[in-house]
């Protein structure tokens, strides 16, 4: 009861506060007095990162009030749904979080976000970000978002003790999937779950890294720009490898989400897991030490390739406080902002001029790879393909891994999914 009335009072005051400010913004002050930042960073290391970022923002732009528009739940799906409704209703936030890359395509086509190329010049971001990254963000000569952080998707996590017990060098790196499969066979014979995986999107994540491994960076990129044929025999071979990899996985996968699959490796119930580098937070939170208790290497056959995804911020068309958004975009792209945010979130800065000494050992190695590796876009995390394509690929993958379709059907469904867009 007490709690209820407190919440009611808080939300009332929040409403009145924002409406006052909106009135002020609309009254010709240029809308720099506040900025509503829409994210799904509502808990855990993401929340810590956002808080750190707000700290820097308050220092750099004391005149602008930060309004937290975070929506919790469903790894961002709840936020994306709400965002979709708000954009349709012409009630956009001042800036919103989205995965950089093709995921933005729908907003761009719908004319819902602004071209930010001029900000890249204004903030000197073309020099600060790697050229590969700027290329990947550019669509038809325009850039629509500014990344706040970079994650790497093609990482193979392993439990060192489990590997050692089965006579496998825990720090071994693999040159090809076939080498890795030999070890997986050995683990399976020993009665250990060789590879843990979770629900459909993590299976797509695994599929993407295997495609990358078998086709190479160029072939993988070709899948998204049409130069690699989805019906080709190389893709068939990669899908066969995917089928084989899935045969090593836990049977209860569809009921799990990525933290539970990662937990299997942490607890020693599985030897390997393929996940992005945000998984390191799960290991470290439980007192595991990088290099001794667990190892993280590129997915076999993808050494030298950085399968990237990035959170980035946009400027919606008709944002009520464009100057507030301008201030926010300046902070998230600044060296201080990127350093504070990524040190707390566990990801790495998109800027190449960040000082590695500010980051953890794992982050330092990731930063090094990001500086020198070939960068490709992640499918499962919205960088490589639009939402509708990703949904169709996810459907086809789920159908295949539950046994409702065979490899041929799977391949033609994948081809159809990408041909539609």
């Amino acid at each position, binding site marked *: 009861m007490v709690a209820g009335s407190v919440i009611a009072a808080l939300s009332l005051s929040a409403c009145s506060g924002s409406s006052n400010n909106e009135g002020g913004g609309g009254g010709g002050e240029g809308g720099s007095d506040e900025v509503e930042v829409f994210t799904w960073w509502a808990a855990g290391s993401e929340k810590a990162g956002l808080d750190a970022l707000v700290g820097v923002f308050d220092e750099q732009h004391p005149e602008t009030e930060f309004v937290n528009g975070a929506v919790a739940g469903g790894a961002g799906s709840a936020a994306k749904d709400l965002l979709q409704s708000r954009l349709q209703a012409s009630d956009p936030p001042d800036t919103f979080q989205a995965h950089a890359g093709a995921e933005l395509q*729908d907003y761009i086509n719908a004319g819902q976000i602004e071209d930010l190329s001029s900000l890249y010049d204004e903030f000197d971001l073309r020099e600060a970000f790697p050229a590969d990254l700027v290329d990947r963000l550019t669509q038809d000569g325009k850039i629509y978002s500014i990344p706040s952080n970079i994650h790497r998707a093609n990482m193979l996590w392993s439990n060192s003790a489990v590997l050692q017990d089965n006579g496998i060098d825990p720090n071994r790196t693999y040159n090809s999937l076939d080498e890795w499969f030999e070890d997986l066979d050995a683990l399976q014979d020993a009665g250990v779950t060789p590879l843990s995986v979770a629900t*459909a999107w993590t299976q797509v994540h695994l599929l993407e890294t295997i495609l990358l491994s078998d086709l190479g960076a160029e072939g993988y990129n070709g899948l998204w720009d049409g130069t690699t044929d989805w019906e080709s025999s190389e893709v068939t071979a990669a899908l066969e490898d995917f089928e084989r990899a899935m045969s090593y996985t836990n*049977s209860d996968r*569809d009921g799990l989400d990525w933290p539970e699959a990662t937990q299997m490796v942490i607890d020693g119930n599985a030897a390997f897991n393929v996940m992005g580098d945000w998984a390191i937070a799960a290991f470290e939170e439980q007192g595991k030490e990088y290099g001794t208790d667990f190892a993280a290497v590129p997915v076999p056959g993808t050494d030298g390739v950085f399968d990237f995804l990035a959170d980035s911020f946009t400027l919606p068309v008709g944002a009520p406080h464009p100057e507030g958004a301008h201030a926010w975009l300046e902070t998230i792209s600044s060296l201080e902002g990127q350093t504070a945010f990524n040190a707390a979130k566990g990801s790495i800065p998109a800027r190449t001029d960040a000082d590695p000494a500010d980051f953890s050992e794992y982050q330092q190695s990731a930063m090094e790879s990001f500086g020198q590796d070939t960068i490709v876009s992640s499918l499962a995390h919205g960088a490589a393909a639009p939402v*509708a394509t990703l949904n169709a690929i996810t*459907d086809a993958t789920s159908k295949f891994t539950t046994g*409702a379709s065979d490899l041929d059907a799977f391949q033609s469904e994948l081809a159809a999914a990408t041909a539609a867009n």
Partner: protein
Amino acid sequence: MTKALKRAGAPLLLLAPSLILVGIFVYGLIAVNFGTSATDIHTAAQTTGREPSGTVWFDNYLDLLGSEAFQHSLKNLLLYTVLFLAGTLLIGFVWAWLLESPIKGEGIFRAVYLFPMAVSFVASGVVWRWLLNSGQDESATGLNRLFQMVGLDFMQNNWWNNVDYGITAIAIPAIWQLSGYVMALFLAGFRGIPYELREAARVDGATTWQLYRHVLFPQLSPIALSALIIIGHMSLKSFDLIMSISKPANYQTKVPAVDMYIFKSSFDYANAAAVGSILLVIVALVVVPYLIRTNRKEK
């Protein structure tokens, strides 16, 4: 004429606000939904008018009904509904029958049976997701683990992860949740039968079975029909329970409501609207005959 208007005027005025609101927000939006489903709005750009969209009439319906994936969803919905209906009606009826003759502690049993209904589908879904874990043998948890502990290892199965019948596993929590409600309906039905009827039957020399068979059960048929309609339309609308046990992207547990959600979140408004319309038509097929029947009776 003026007299008639005078007589109807006040009630009409009273009803007008709700009539208008229902007209706009229920029937008006249903019409908009049908309208959207007849267009080719499959991308975000078309919803904002940046790219042209046109009317395609029934193409979306034909495409959907012809696609293997949507047929799979419809088959899942049918399986789910049949099991959900059969399970709740049977269990609810048996519980009501057992409680029908006054026994000590009836209130406690009633509360115990009815209690699951107080839990939301989402909350129970979280628990059942764990209970219905498909891990077996060494990795077993939930019900599979329970089967191991009591030596019924052969009963272990992969529950909702079976691609053909997986959806029926999700009917189990649904049955668990609503059997008590059906019991309450039937119990009210039993209690509503005048005691004199039973006495008269006894005087005429009816055995207990004959009493039930010829006197009590026939009077429960309106209750059974109500239960069928209520559970049936709940089943067709099932979304929250399935979403909280499985994931929207899991092929094995897809139903039309989940498809609608996925279409909507990939900006494919036309197909989302078409799935919505199909669901509405299916529910109407179940509910409208019932409404006509009760309407006739009241006259």
